[in-house]
């Protein structure tokens, strides 16, 4: 069962990649990629923004309730924010690759 599934998935992947490769320069493909990257970046930025807002809100509440723990809360908060920001930057780079350095677009 696993073998059949792997074969089928590999075939689908190969066909999909071949389709993109043959369609290099096709305006419809370029338009689809542009829409996809815009949507992906919007979702990534919105998700990271919501996460950061929740983190900051919780950190402010924690510091207000227990000011002595503010040092530990700040460190954890900054780590979380930096991880979230890294995710957004990863998304940005992937989108830029898809738009300007796409290996399947010739």
């Amino acid at each position, binding site marked *: 069962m696993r073998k059949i599934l792997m074969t089928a998935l590999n075939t689908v992947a190969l066909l999909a990649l071949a389709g993109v490769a043959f369609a290099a320069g096709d305006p419809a493909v370029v338009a689809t990629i542009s829409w996809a990257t815009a949507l992906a970046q919007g979702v990534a930025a919105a998700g990271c*923004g919501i996460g950061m807002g929740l983190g900051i809100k919780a950190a402010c509440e924690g510091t*207000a309730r227990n000011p002595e723990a*503010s040092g530990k809360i700040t460190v954890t908060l900054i780590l979380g*924010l*930096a991880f979230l*920001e*890294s995710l957004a930057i990863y998304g*940005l780079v992937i989108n*830029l690759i898809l738009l300007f*350095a796409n290996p399947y677009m010739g």
Partner: protein
Amino acid sequence: MTTRASTLVTSFDRMLFRRGFVNPDIRMLVRNQILLAGFSTVFCLAILGFSAWAWSYGAGAVLATLNFWFLAGFGVRITSQPNRTEAVLATLTRFYLRLGLTGAVLYALIVWAGARPVALLTGVSIIVVNFLCWGAVKIAASGTREAPNGKEA
């Protein structure tokens, strides 16, 4: 060699303290990030020469370090903010501004300067490596307990 390294670390610590990084953990994270980015870039340039891969990696590392520098400096100030709404708004505004600037720089690097995207991603990932190492060291340090003294034993 060890003395030189400790002198370098101490001078970095002093410089960061003067710039407002008073929390020792955050200061250590920022210092490690700067040193890691600097040394890894110099290592790449020494091994690969001034190739596209090496300078793209360096550009990614510098970008991640600058982002973390501004984020850490802001994060230290924001937790003492009593108004939650203002704090969240300030964080989001700065996040989107930084993301926009980073996007513009990445666009210029990839499209105009011809940087290698994979090398850029590797350079940006150095910040995650720094955090993971810091976390591993913290966990290892918390697992080490001192031997009980006479009263505890």
